[in-house]
Every structure is written in C-alpha cells, then in structure tokens.
C-alpha cells in the first residue's frame, strides 16, 4: 500500500468519526473540540492532495483562529450547558437523518456517475503544477489570475471587522423613528 493510501485510510475514519462525535456531544465545548480534530484531519488531506499551503492555512486560520473564537464565545456566554435531549419537533430527527443519508447517497451516486471510483490522480502533480513549491505556485495564480477577487476579499475582511465592532459595541442607540411610532401606537391601544 502506498503511503498516501495508508494516510487516507487512517485519517478518513478519524475525520468522519470526529464529525459524528461533534454531532452527538451535548456539551458545546466538547463539540468544538471534536470539530478541531476534524479540521486537523482535513488539513492532512490537503497535504496528501498536494495543497501544502492550504494545509498550513487550515490549521492556522480554521483550527487556530476560528475555533478559538468559537470557544471564546461559548465560554463567554456560558452556553456550554448541556442541551436537552428532548426534541420538540416531531419527526425532525428522523427526517433529518433520512434526508442527510439521502444527500450523501445522492452525492456518492453522482460521483460514481461522474468520475467513477477508479480514477486516480495524475502522479506528476508536484512537478508540473506545484513548480517551485505549492505556495509559490499558488501565489503565481492568486496574484496574477485572481488578483481582483483577492482585493475584493480583503475589502470584505475589513468591512466585516468594522461591522462587528460597530455591531457588538452598541449599547445605547438612538431610538429609530419606526420604533417611536410603534411604541406610540401601543400606548394608545
């Protein structure tokens, strides 16, 4: 068995297992931790697939920044309390599982119909595509072909940051005209 095969067959079950575990955790913090595990496995997959830069980014950004943020909020709000097991909506769980399985099956069937389960990746990826290393190759594509989307995305990040600052910091704000009218109506009634 080739090394990549071994890696795949070791980390695939971990990936799926941790995802399912995340699903089943009653404690939000535990769920978050399992998700981190999942992200790690995906990072490994990236590596195997020849995307070493993304492997790094995944760990740094997703596991390191995003999930940390999640954990901050969970613990800040104190919502790590156990979630009740009682399901209020009848049939929700059953339907969800059924439909989820349906999605999975449909996708797998689509894959089979599309590329088939036998196709292997071209072997010389590292030599042809990742010339000079994955990061360099990626940079070439990113800053030349996808320069405009790159700039737009950076603007997006700035906007998001500003928005959050504005959003989360508002304590008192002027009562809008619509709210005044509604309150007036309520008093009259």
């Amino acid at each position, binding site marked *: 068995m080739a090394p990549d095969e071994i890696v795949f067959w070791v980390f695939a079950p971990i990936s799926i297992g941790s995802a399912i575990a995340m699903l089943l955790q009653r404690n939000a913090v535990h769920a978050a931790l399992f998700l981190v595990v999942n992200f790690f496995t995906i990072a490994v997959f990236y590596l195997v697939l020849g995307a070493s830069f993304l492997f790094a980014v995944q760990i740094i950004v997703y596991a390191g920044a995003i999930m940390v943020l999640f954990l901050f909020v969970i613990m800040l709000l104190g919502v790590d309390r156990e979630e009740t097991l009682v399901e*209020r*909506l009848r049939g*929700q769980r059953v*339907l*969800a599982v059924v*439909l*989820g399985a*349906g*999605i999975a099956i*449909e996708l797998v*069937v*689509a894959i089979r*119909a599309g590329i088939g389960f036998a196709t292997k990746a071209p072997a010389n990826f590292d030599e042809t595509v990742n010339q000079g290393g994955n990061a360099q190759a990626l940079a070439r594509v990113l800053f030349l072909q996808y320069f405009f989307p790159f700039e737009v995305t950076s603007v997006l990040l700035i906007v998001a940051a500003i928005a959050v600052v504005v959003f989360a910091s508002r304590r008192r704000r002027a009562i809008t005209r619509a709210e005044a009218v509604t309150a007036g109506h309520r008093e009259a009634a």
Partner: protein
Amino acid sequence: MLDLVWLIPLLPLAGAAVNLLLGRRLGKAAGWLATGLVGLGFVLAVAALVDLLGLPADQRVHVANLFDWITVGTFSVDVALRVDPLSITMTLVVTGVGALIHLYAIGYMDHDPRFGVFFAHLNLFVFFMLMLVLADNYLLLYLGWEGVGLCSYLLIGFWFERPSASSAAKKAFVTTRIGDAAMLLGIVLIWLHVGSLDFGAVFGRGASELTQGAATAIALLLLAGAIGKSAQLPLHVWLPDAMEGPTPVSALIHAATMVTAGVYLVVRSHVLFELSGTALTVVLVVGLVSALYAALASIGQFDLKRALAYSTMSQIGFMFFAAGMRFYTGAMLLLVCHAFYKALLFLTAGNVLHGLHDETDMRRMGGLRADMPLSAAWFTLGALSLAGIPPLAGFFAKDQIVGFAATSGREVAWVLASLGAFLSALYIARPLFLTFFGRRRGREHAHEAPGPMQAPLAVLAFLTVVGGLFLGLTAEGGRLARFLEPVVGVVEHGEAALPEAALISISVVLALAAVAVAFWIWASGRVDWEAFPQRQPELAGWLANAFYLNTLYAWLVQHPGKAFGRALTVVDDRVIDGAVNEVAEDVVDASGVAPRIQRGFVRSYALAFLLGAVALLLFLGLRA
C-alpha cells in the same frame, strides 16, 4: 253582429284593464264603467241572439275565427268563438245577471278602499267566463276555465287581510286545481285520439272515431274538472268557505255563473258522454248524491251564506242529475232559472248583511221582515221559486227534472229526486223563516238597503216570477228546450208509471209540505229549534259540519302534506344546510391545520430546504 261577437268578451276585458290601471282615479265611476260594459255586452248578446234566430233552426251555428293561436307541428288551435243556442244562452245569463250584480255591487262595495280593483276583478271574471262559454275548442274553453278559477281566487280572497279569506281562496284554487288537472288530461286525450280540439271536429269526426273506452276515459276526466268547478262531491269543500268573499262575488261566481260552468261543459260535451254510457251514469250518481248531501248539510248551517252555498251545490247536483239522464234541456232550464233566483237570494242576503253590519249568523237574526220589508219580499220570492212553488220559475225547472226521472224508468232515481226536491224546499224555507220571520233574536235594528241596490233585485225578482213561464212551460215544448234542441238533441223520454198531472201534483204537494214544516219548526215558535244542538249534539254536529268531510280531507290530505313539508324542512335544515355548513366547517378546520406549518421554528424551515434540495437532486439525477 255574429261576426262581431268577439266584442262581447272584449268589453269587460278592456274594463278590467282600465280599472286596474286607472281605478283609483276613477273612483265611483269605475263601478259604473264596469257595469256599463257588461250591460253593453248583454245588449250585444241580444243582438247576436236576434241574428241567430234569423237563421234556420238547423243552421244556427256561427264560428268566428279570430286568429291562429298555436301552431306547432301538427297541433293547431285557433282563437275561435262559437255562437250557437247553447253558448248564446250562457252568454245572455252571464252578461245579463252579471250586469245586474255589477250594478248591485256599486252600492254594496261603496265604502271599500279597493273599489276599483274589485270591479277590475269582476270584469276580468266576466271576460274569462265569456271566453269559456263562447269557445269553439277545448283549449280556449280551458283558458276561460283557468281564468275564472284565477278570478275566483282573487275575489274570494278580496279582503285578503283576513286570514280566513285568504285561506279560503287558496282552498278553492287548490281543490279546483285537482279537477282542472284531470280535465287537462282529458283534453290531451281528445287531441291524441281525434287530432283536433275544435268542437266541430271532436263532436263530428270524433264521435265516429272514438272507441267507447277512450270516450269513457275522456268523459270521466272532463267530468272531474266539472266536479271541481261546480263543487260537487268529492271536490265540493271549497264552496262553503268561498262565502268569505264579498256577497256580490258569491252571487255572481258561486251561484249564477262559474259553478255552472261544469254543467255547461257536460252539456257541451254530451256527444262524448253519450258515446260512453258509463260516464253518464257517473254524472247522474254524482249529481244525485251531491244534491242530497248538500241538502242535508244546508239544513245544519247557521251561517246564512253557507246555507245558501250548500243549496247551490244541491241545485247544481240536480242539474248534473238531469244531464246524466240525457235531459240536457232540463239541466239548462234549471241553470238559467237558478241563476235568477239564486242571484236574487244571495243579493238579498247581501242586503241583510249590509243592514246588520256583516252579521251572518241566523241565530242572531229573526223577524227582519219588519225592518226590511222589501228584502223580505225578494227573499220570499226567491225561496219559493227554489222550493218549486208554481208558477215561479223554479217550479218548472225542478218539476220537469223530477218528472223526467219518473219517465226514464229509473224509479229509485225518481224517489230520490223527489226526496231531494222536498229537502230543497225545506232547506231554502229555513233561512227565509229564520231571517225574516219569527222572533227577533238580534239586538240591532236593521236598515233596508238603499234604492240603487234594490233595482237589480227587482229585475231578478221579475225574472224569477216569469222566467219559467216564458222559457220552460213544458219539457218538450218550452222555448228554451226547442231553442237548444239543435245542439243537444231531442228530449226523449218514455212513459211514466203515473200520469203527468199526478206527478206534478205530488211535487207541488211535497214543496208546500216542506215549506209548511219549515214554517212550523223555525218560524212558528212552537219548536225549540235552538235547543236542538244541545239535545242532539251528534246529529247537529253531523249536519253542521257537513258530515265532517272537511275533517276527513284534512286528515287524508293536509296532515300528510304538512308532515311531508315538515320532513322536507328537516331535510333542508340537516341535509342541505348541513352539507353546506359541513363544508364551511371543513374549511375552518383546514385553516386551523394550515398554520401549524408556520410555527416559527427555524429548524423546520431548514428541514424544508433540505427536503427540497434532496428532491431536486433526485429529480436531476434520475433525469440524467
């Protein structure tokens, strides 16, 4: 004139239209207009009679074809008027007696707020009655038939604010409807078998083509109509109640004209009746039984008008009886004489009502001779005529019929007819004595009717006195009999067991005896007739309630009818309304379910998304 005979019915029709539209503005003139038009009709009828007499006896038929009425496929009926001795006789009676009654009504209905409408209805009635008697085919006759039924309804229920009046009108209409429906079937049968409804065709060609069975069926169906319209058993129940209408209405419609339409129909269709022997027998039996039944019922009535109503039914029974023996001229003579004296009696009763402010119960009358001498005289004349005292008109008419029964070989019929004659005298002398003679039982002082109201009565009294002498001196030789012969055939009768003089004496003696008995019971004061209902409650009840036939009909027809109506109401409420309400409730329930989809849970919405997505993928996948 014979070609202008259509003017005779047209005049009262115009009068009805004018009075309906302009009645209120005309005021009292409406009454004069109506009377004048009918009177003019009488004059024109006399002119037609003169023209008719100018023709040789066997050619006295004139058909004035006015216009094509209905032509559908092979079915064709015209509006055609027939002038022959029979129809002109009826026309003269209708317009003559009608005009007199119109004249009387001007005074009688003087204070009524709907004066103009009354005369419009009366004129309309005369129009329809004339169409009935002048028609040359069965469909036009039926038009008049139904029309007089309508006018009868309108006039009986003239004072419709009174529930008793409006229900009496309904009763009359519905009861005669039964007969009318049968009659229509008969007319249809005529059409089916003969192919035409014209009298000429039916009595000529039809006579030879019809089978006895068909003729019997037709005759019996027509007879059913006649029974309804002429208030014979078993469709008589509407006539006593019809007295709810104003007295001129009772006089005109329910004495002189409309109720005699049935007799006219039988006489006119005698060809068909003779083709089927059975039908004639039925006519005879119906007439005789009705005559006796009504006579007994009349004796039990305390309401003056109801007593007269039953007497009408009895007299018409005699007419049917005569027709059943093929003595058509006798029936017609009685019809004409009856018109005279019955109108006289009713209008005089109107005088009494007018004088006593609408009191009709004879127990509260008595001794009115002193207050109303003129009316007493009229009533006496009319009563004696009906009783059959010579030389008044009624004697000739009645006696000829009874005598004919003796000669026709039906002894039982003669005995029963004589009994009927005796009862007739009895039942008409009774109201005479109860009202005008004897002890004054009422508290009011009655005032005599004014002059204008007495004038027509004088004319009618005159006719009652001389009518018989003029028209029907003898059974075969009387003017009317000879006049009608071409239409109805020669009177044929056999020999009687007793000589004619004896028969006449017997009937006169019976009549006088009856009057004497009536005097003794009700006028002499020697018999306590007022205590009779208490002493013999059962018998009194049977008589007063006319043998409880009304009750029987109520039980047989009304109660099931009402029960059916109630059942249908239940069906309507529960089933039909229920279904509608059910649908509404289902909609409401459904709309109660619908909001459950939108409960506000985000996760439900998300599930819906997923469901859609999976379905879409499935669809796309299957397509590829």
